[in-house]
C-alpha cells in the first residue's frame, strides 16, 4: 500500500488583503500517520481550505514547517491529490479525458491506459467514459473527479468538502464509497467538511478549528468500528462536544 505521513508544525498563513495582512491559520500543529483518515471541521473562514492548499503544495505557508514522510514539502506533486467541492472537471474533455490528465501530464499515458480504465471501473463510470462533464449528474461528476485524483495512486488524498454540493441521498452513498476506496487503496486522507456527522462517520480523528484565525481547538479520536451509526451513544456525545466547540450548541 502506498501511503504518506504528514506533519505540520506551527503552521501560520497570511493573505495580503489590500494593505492589510489577514491571518488565516495561526500556529496549527497537525500530525497524520500513514493510512490515517483525518477530518477537519471548523466554521466558515477558519482556514480549512487553506490548510489543504498548503498540504497540496499549491501555496507556501507564511511560517511553520510542513513535511511529508519527513521531507519538506516543495510544491505540488502527483503523489498528493486534491478533490474540491466543485468537481472542476475540464468541460472540453470527456470523462476518460479528464481521468487521463494525470498520466498525460507526466507523459506516461501510453503505459498507463490500464490505470485509467481501472480508475473509471473503481468509481463505476466505465459506461460513461465518453460522456462530457456537462452531461453528468452532480454525483457522477464528483465520482469522475475522484477517479481523476486516484489514477495517480496518490499517497495522500486531500478532500475539500468533496460531497458538500451533493443531495443528501447521493452524499450518504458517496460517503460509503469513499470509505471503501480508502480501505481498498490504503492512502492517507485529510477531509475538510462542514458536516460533523460526515466527519464522525468517516474519520479516525476529528480536528476542530476555531474561527479566523484558525487554531486547533481539539483533536478528537473517533474510536468506533466502521460502518458507524452516528446515533450510537459514544458518537452522539462526541458530536455534542464538537458542536459545542464550534459554538453551535451551548
Amino acid at each position, binding site marked *: 500500500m502506498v501511503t504518506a505521513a504528514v506533519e505540520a508544525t506551527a503552521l501560520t498563513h497570511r493573505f495580503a488583503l489590500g494593505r492589510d495582512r489577514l491571518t488565516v491559520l495561526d500556529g496549527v500543529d497537525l500530525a497524520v500517520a500513514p493510512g490515517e483518515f483525518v477530518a477537519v471541521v471548523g466554521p466558515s473562514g477558519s482556514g480549512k481550505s487553506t490548510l489543504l*492548499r498548503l498540504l*497540496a*503544495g*499549491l501555496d507556501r505557508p507564511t511560517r511553520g514547517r510542513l513535511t511529508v514522510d519527513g521531507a519538506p514539502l516543495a510544491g*505540488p*506533486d*502527483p503523489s*498528493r*491529490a*486534491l478533490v*474540491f467541492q*466543485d468537481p*472542476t472537471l*475540464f*468541460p*472540453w*474533455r470527456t470523462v476518460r479525458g479528464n481521468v487521463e*490528465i*494525470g498520466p*498525460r*501530464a*507526466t507523459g506516461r499515458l501510453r503505459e498507463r491506459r490500464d490505470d485509467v480504465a481501472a480508475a473509471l471501473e*473503481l*468509481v*463505476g*463510470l466505465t*459506461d*460513461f467514459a465518453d*460522456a*462530457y462533464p*456537462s*452531461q*453528468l*449528474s452532480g454525483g*457522477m461528476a464528483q*465520482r469522475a473527479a475522484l477517479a*481523476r*485524483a486516484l489514477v*495517480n495512486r496518490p499517497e495522500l488524498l486531500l478532500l475539500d468538502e468533496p460531497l458538500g454540493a451533493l443531495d443528501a441521498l447521493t452524499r450518504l452513498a458517496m460517503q460509503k*464509497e469513499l470509505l*471503501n476506496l480508502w480501505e481498498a487503496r490504503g492512502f492517507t486522507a485529510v477531509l475538510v467538511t462542514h458536516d460533523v456527522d460526515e466527519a464522525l462517520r468517516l474519520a479516525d480523528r476529528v480536528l476542530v478549528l476555531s474561527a479566523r484565525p484558525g487554531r486547533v481547538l481539539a483533536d478528537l479520536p473517533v474510536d468506533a468500528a466502521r460502518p458507524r451509526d452516528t446515533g450510537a451513544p459514544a458518537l452522539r456525545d462526541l458530536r455534542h462536544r464538537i458542536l459545542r466547540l464550534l459554538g453551535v450548541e451551548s
Partner: protein
Amino acid sequence: MAVTQRERAAAPARAAARRRARPPVAALFGALVWTAGAALTALVPNRQEAEHTAVTAGLAGAVAVLTAALAPALTERVRRAGPWIAATGYWFVFWELATAKLDLLEPPYFTSPQGLLAALWDDRALLLDSFGNSLKLLVIGYSLGAATGVLTGIAMGWSPRVHYWAHPVLMSIGPVPAAAWLPLILLVFPTSYSGAVFMVALAVWFPTTVLTRAGVAAVSRRYYDVAQTLGAGSGYLVWRVAVPAALPQIFVGLFMGLGAAFLTLVVAELLGVKNGLGWYIQWTKGWAAYPRMYAAITLMIVLCGGAMALLFRVRNRVLRWQKDLVRW
C-alpha cells in the same frame, strides 16, 4: 458502485422521425414558385433589352425540378430550407418583373437576372482571376493575423511581463483601422502585395489578440490547481489547460477578425494591389458597367459567406463539448 439511472433521451430522435413523415409542403410550394418564375421569364416578352433569357428561364426551371425531384428523399437540413426556396423564388419573380419584363428599375443602374448571368459568363476569366486573388490574399493575410493574434493573446494572458509591454502597443496600434496605415505601409513594404497581406493580417491580429488574452486571463485558477496537483508542468498548463479553456473566447476573436479582414481586403485591393474583387468592383463602377459590378459583388458574397460558414463549421467541431448534449 453501479450507476443505476441510465435513461438516454430518445425524444429528439422521435421528433425527427415525426418530421420526416410529414410531406415536404414548403419545398414543393417553393418548386411551384420557381416554376412560375421560369414560365414568366420564358413566355412574357422582355421590355428591357436582355440576352440569355432562355438560359435564365432554364436555370429557374432547373431549381424547380431539382427541388421537386429531391423533396421526397430530402434530408432534414434540406427539408428545412423549403420556406427559403419559396422565398428566393418570390424574389426572383419580383426581380424579373421589375427589370426585364416591366422595366421599372432601369439600366444602367439596375440589371435583370439575365443581365447578371450574362455579366458573370461574359467576363468569367477576369472574375475568376479576381476571385482567386481575393481568396489568396484573404487566406494568407487571415492565417498570418490569426496565428499571430492567438500567440500574442496567449503570451499576454499568461505572462504579466508580456502583458505589461504589449498592452500599450496593442491599445495604440490596434484600434486604428488597418486601412489608415495604408500610405505608410505602401512606403515601407517592398511590394504592394506584401503590404496588402500585412494590412489584412494587422486587422485580424487586433481583435484576435484582445479576445484571446481576455479568454486566457479569465481561466479559473481551479483548473490550474487541479492540473498542478496531477503533475502538470507549465507547458501543459498553457497548451492543455489555458488554451482549451479560452477557446470559446478565441473563436469570438477569430470571427471578429474575419469581419475586419473582409473590410481591409477590399480597401487593400482598391488602393494597393490593383487586382481582386475589391479592385474589380471599383474598376467596373468607374466606367458604369453596373451588371459586372453586381457580378463581382455576388462573388464577394460567395467568398465572405463561404469563409464565415467554414469558420462556423470549424468552431462547432472544436467546441463540440459546448453543445447542448444529452444529459443523464
